[in-house]
């Protein structure tokens, strides 16, 4: 399916007595990586969870117009990848990768061979029958990435998906994600400016209370960008300063 542009207009989210954001406008351009940065607690995960329909409406007041171009049912077309890999300890690597199909009772041979191909691609061909307990954190998050890809959805929402990994593994996973998610509309929430600059086609900073979005930052060059690029490192410095300022205001 063609990756859609997603537009959120007049977004408002309140928890109990707290306004997270109101009057928020946010666009995710089609088939590109959008990164969302911000100080912790500002509501960037909440914004992602709003798009994923994961906010419990019992404790929150939500109002937002979400439209897509071309028009699709967003709930049926997202894949979600969180910071925790959320692998099921009773399923093998291969079974975990196929979770989406299993839950829909649609696991078949075709799915299986697609899963094996992708697991090979991320270097897990020797671990297909292992259980998550036997894997390292980086390997587990790779399985989660494969699981996300196998859902074959045009929209991918990633909530700090690589935050729990060590620096080197994180770079590897970023490269894999940039390569494998290239044709999808992706939102990546992260607290790491370098990560945003490496794989973001555009970057937004969310700050303040109620939270406001910055103007988009569009780094030059194709993703994944090199970490030694001088322009990129200068932008990282500026972004860090911006995040620091945002924190002192909040």
């Amino acid at each position: 399916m063609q990756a859609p542009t997603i537009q959120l207009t007049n977004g408002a989210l309140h928890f109990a007595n707290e306004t997270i954001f109101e009057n928020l406008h946010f666009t995710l351009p089609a088939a590109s990586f959008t990164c969302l940065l911000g100080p912790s607690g500002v509501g960037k995960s909440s914004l992602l969870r709003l798009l994923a329909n994961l906010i419990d409406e019992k404790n929150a007041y939500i109002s937002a117009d979400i439209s897509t171009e071309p028009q699709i049912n967003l709930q049926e077309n997202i894949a979600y990848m969180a910071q925790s890999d959320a692998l099921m300890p009773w399923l093998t690597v291969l079974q975990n990768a196929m979770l989406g199909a299993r839950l829909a009772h649609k696991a078949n041979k075709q799915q299986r061979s697609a899963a094996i191909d992708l697991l090979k691609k991320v270097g897990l061909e020797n671990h297909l029958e292992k259980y998550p307990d036997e894997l390292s954190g980086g390997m587990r998050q790779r399985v989660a990435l494969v699981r996300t890809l196998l859902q074959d959805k045009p929209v991918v929402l990633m909530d700090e998906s690589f935050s729990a990994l060590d620096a080197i593994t994180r770079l590897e996973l970023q490269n894999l994600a940039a390569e494998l998610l290239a044709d999808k509309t992706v939102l990546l929430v992260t607290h790491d400016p370098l990560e945003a600059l490496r794989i973001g086609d555009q970057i937004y900073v969310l700050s303040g209370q109620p939270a406001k979005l910055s103007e988009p930052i569009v780094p030059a060059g194709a993703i994944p960008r090199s970490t030694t690029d001088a322009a990129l490192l200068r932008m990282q410095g500026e972004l860090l300063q911006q995040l620091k300022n945002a924190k002192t205001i909040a």
Partner: protein
Amino acid sequence: MKFLLRLFIIGFSLLLLWQGIVWLFKLPPYILPSPILVFKTWYLQSGLIWQQTKPTLLETLLGLVFGSLSGMCAALLLISFKPARLWLLPVLVISQAIPTFAIAPLLVVWFGYGLASKVITAMIMIFFPVSTAFYDGLRRTKPEWLALAKTMNASRFAVLTQIRIPAALPNLASGLRMAAAIAPIGAIIGEWVGSSQGLGFLMLNANGRMEINLMFAALFTITALTLILYYSVDWLLKRAIPWQKEQN
């Protein structure tokens, strides 16, 4: 192996202590028989003891199976239907609040002297630990798994069978282990209040005739039965739930 050795050492020391007390205070066998006498009785009366073990074993196993099954069904009902949570949960707690010992005579009146009243006594004792342990596990599914399943548009049934139930199996296992340890107690209580056979019946009879050595022999048989049952269930569960790692 280390475990068996430890068990043996513990058992042997306790027996030695016991034998020492009997010698030291020169206790007559109708007050406290020596372990040697008890084992002699066990050996000589092994035919009688085995004959009385069979009904108790049957009651215990049936009570364990039906008590566990009904406990599991109750937990599944509680997690699946909100009205069940509101109306069944208090019933569950009441079932545990009533002392089983006190209603055992009633159960004999209602279900007779035979097998049924003992199985039901054991079931009542097992029902609560199994249902609460399993229900707790079903309720405490990791939120991140449920969130993931929700974004995959999984049906409630798929979430229950493929996520909640497997996630709750370690909790269910704790409930089942406890059930295995208390099932024989249920059967024995049932036999005490009214029966014509079984180890509980044998104990009461031996007690009445001051055959304390036979009573002890029956008591040891019950203990051995409980231990074997508990460790068999434990062994089975560990194989059924291999992902539950022990952390010490």
